[in-house]
């Protein structure tokens, strides 16, 4: 049977020891997050860092987990590589791809001011528009020496700095808070 964490353990990072919908710490109040709230993507990260990227890079860069790895473990596992044809892939919504002249199977580059990563275009009609997905964990040797994290920036959400409980509540890079765009660089 699963029981809630003991109050004294949970109270290390939540004063009441239980889920709180209202937080009154200074950082939460300053960020306007005392109550659960929606914030426009990139307003406090990419656009604040460099306003000129607004409209220049139009895709949210998401580095999701892959079926074939545990983060970067097994990136050099030959069986896993066989299962995905030894090809890193860039997943795009078909409408976004068509806008950029990208066809299924093209060699595509995701890029922003910080870096680039390349992969084979896979058009996924089930994927939302405005998103480019690259599967995290590919070693640089499979990416022509590039790194998928060259595009990310170590944005840290201020409210994550309020407590430090390893593995539960701690500052961490907001990996998916990155903008990019896609262009075709070759055909396969």
């Amino acid at each position, binding site marked *: 049977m699963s029981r809630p964490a003991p109050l004294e353990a949970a109270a290390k990072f939540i004063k009441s020891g239980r889920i709180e919908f209202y937080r009154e710490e200074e950082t939460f109040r300053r960020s306007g997050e005392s109550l659960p709230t929606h914030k426009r993507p990139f307003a406090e990260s990419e656009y604040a860092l460099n306003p000129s990227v607004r409209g220049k890079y139009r895709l949210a860069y998401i580095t999701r987990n892959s079926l074939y790895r545990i983060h970067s473990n097994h990136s050099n596992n030959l*069986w896993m590589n066989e*299962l995905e044809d030894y090809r890193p892939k860039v997943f795009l919504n078909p409408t976004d791809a068509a806008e950029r002249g990208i066809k299924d199977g093209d060699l595509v580059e995701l890029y922003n001011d910080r870096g680039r990563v390349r992969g084979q275009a896979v058009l996924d009609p089930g994927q939302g528009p405005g998103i480019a997905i690259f599967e995290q964990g590919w070693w640089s040797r499979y990416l022509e020496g590039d790194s998928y994290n060259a595009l990310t920036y170590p944005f840290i959400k201020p409210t994550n700095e309020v407590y430090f409980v390893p593995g539960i509540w701690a500052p961490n890079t907001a990996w998916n808070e990155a903008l990019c765009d896609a262009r075709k660089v070759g055909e396969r």
Partner: protein
Amino acid sequence: MRYGMVIDLDLCVGCRTCAVVCKEHNAQAPGTWWNRVFTPGSKYHQIPAEAEGGFSMYYLPVSCMHCENAPCEKVCPVGATYTDERGRVLIDYERCIGCRYCLSACPYGVRQFNWEDPKGAKARAGYQEGYSYGYPFPHRDKEGRLVYTPDRPKGVVEKCTFCVQYTDKGEEPICVQSCPAGARLFGDLDDPNSRINQVLRKEKGERLLEELGTKPKVFYLPPKRK
């Protein structure tokens, strides 16, 4: 006794665990896969395919169908492919001459050929020297035919055996044992009380390319929601 399998496509999550454990336990060389999992209609695994009225995504594991009327067995000029007393379609690696008639006869495309000694293929793919995997012993049937050996000789055809080395000991094939979703059932089609027959009485099992008359012993319960 006639071994058969039922695969419930509503339960299959497309994780490909069955393909990987099959490759491991049956010591398949680089590039060889006895067992594959597809996303029907889609070029890529786990990407939805266009379908009537929208999109569909379900998964289809495919390995040897162990046909009652096996085309591979009929075309084999040397009797290397045969059906044993438990209904398993097997290959005698010592008798196979590598003519590959069976590769073109099999409508399911599951047979694979050893173009070279697997040790060479492993070395070229970058395996560490001396690294080996899979069930480590040769396995012979009652008549002494070599139906499994970890390093297949160059020039023979291979495919799923329903894990003959395990099913001979009363264990289930490794894909059945390992499926995390419990999507695979294995048992005796001749036993009316076997679990697979109970399931097949309740639900209509479909077989791939049934119109060809191959009579596969692998049944699929089609997905209710595609």
